[in-house]
């Protein structure tokens, strides 16, 4: 079963607009990570937020985490055509296994 579920499944915006993607998960976690996947490529790590953090920033990325609602959001500000990709949340559950559980992803299309 999937730990993380992203919403929306697909998102199309204009360059310069902000993009917000949401992720929900089911069990307690150590941390939550966001990855990007360009078409036909492997995943690239974007940002990690620990379970005791509520918000984190990295460049144009802003991640929030609400452990009471078991949800996270990824905001990409001032989007660029190069941000076109699929975005996945991944959770590191408190099992000691260090294996991540990925959601099904949000496909982001940024129109130039």
């Amino acid at each position, binding site marked *: 079963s*999937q730990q*993380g579920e992203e919403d929306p499944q697909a998102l199309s915006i204009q360059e310069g607009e902000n993009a917000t993607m949401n992720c929900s998960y089911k069990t307690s976690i*150590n*941390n939550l*990570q966001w*990855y990007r996947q360009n078409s*036909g*490529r*492997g*995943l*690239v*790590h974007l940002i*990690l937020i*620990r379970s005791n953090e509520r918000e984190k920033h990295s460049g144009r990325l802003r991640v929030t985490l609400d452990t009471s609602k078991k949800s996270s959001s990824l905001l990409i500000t001032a989007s660029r055509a190069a941000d076109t990709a699929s975005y*996945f949340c*991944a959770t*590191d559950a408190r099992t000691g*296994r*260090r*294996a*991540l*559980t*990925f*959601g*099904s*992803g949000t496909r982001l299309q940024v129109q130039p």
Partner: protein
Amino acid sequence: DAGITQSPRYKITETGRQVTLMCHQTWSHSYMFWYRQDLGHGLRLIYYSAAADITDKGEVPDGYVVSRSKTENFPLTLESATRSQTSVYFCASSNSPGLAGATSSYEQYFGPGTRLTVT
């Protein structure tokens, strides 16, 4: 600095054949993982390894075998390929635990993937 590589990048095989997908990393990362990616399922963990000679099942291990005799290699074998194993396979690695305050030890680094078609 090659990082993490997978071979072959594309493979077509017949039902019932044995096929091995290779994964090699140059960072000496302790942890290595195999995922498969199918439409509508995201990535699902097949097997992972915490160190050489230590492996464990993930979410979808049936029909797969792994080994880890060397830290840098983590081959995945489909013992008797089935059409349901048609997928894109990704290998990943991550650093050792215990690096004080280092959230980077939780990041996973992915290979470019192997697209496998079973006919």
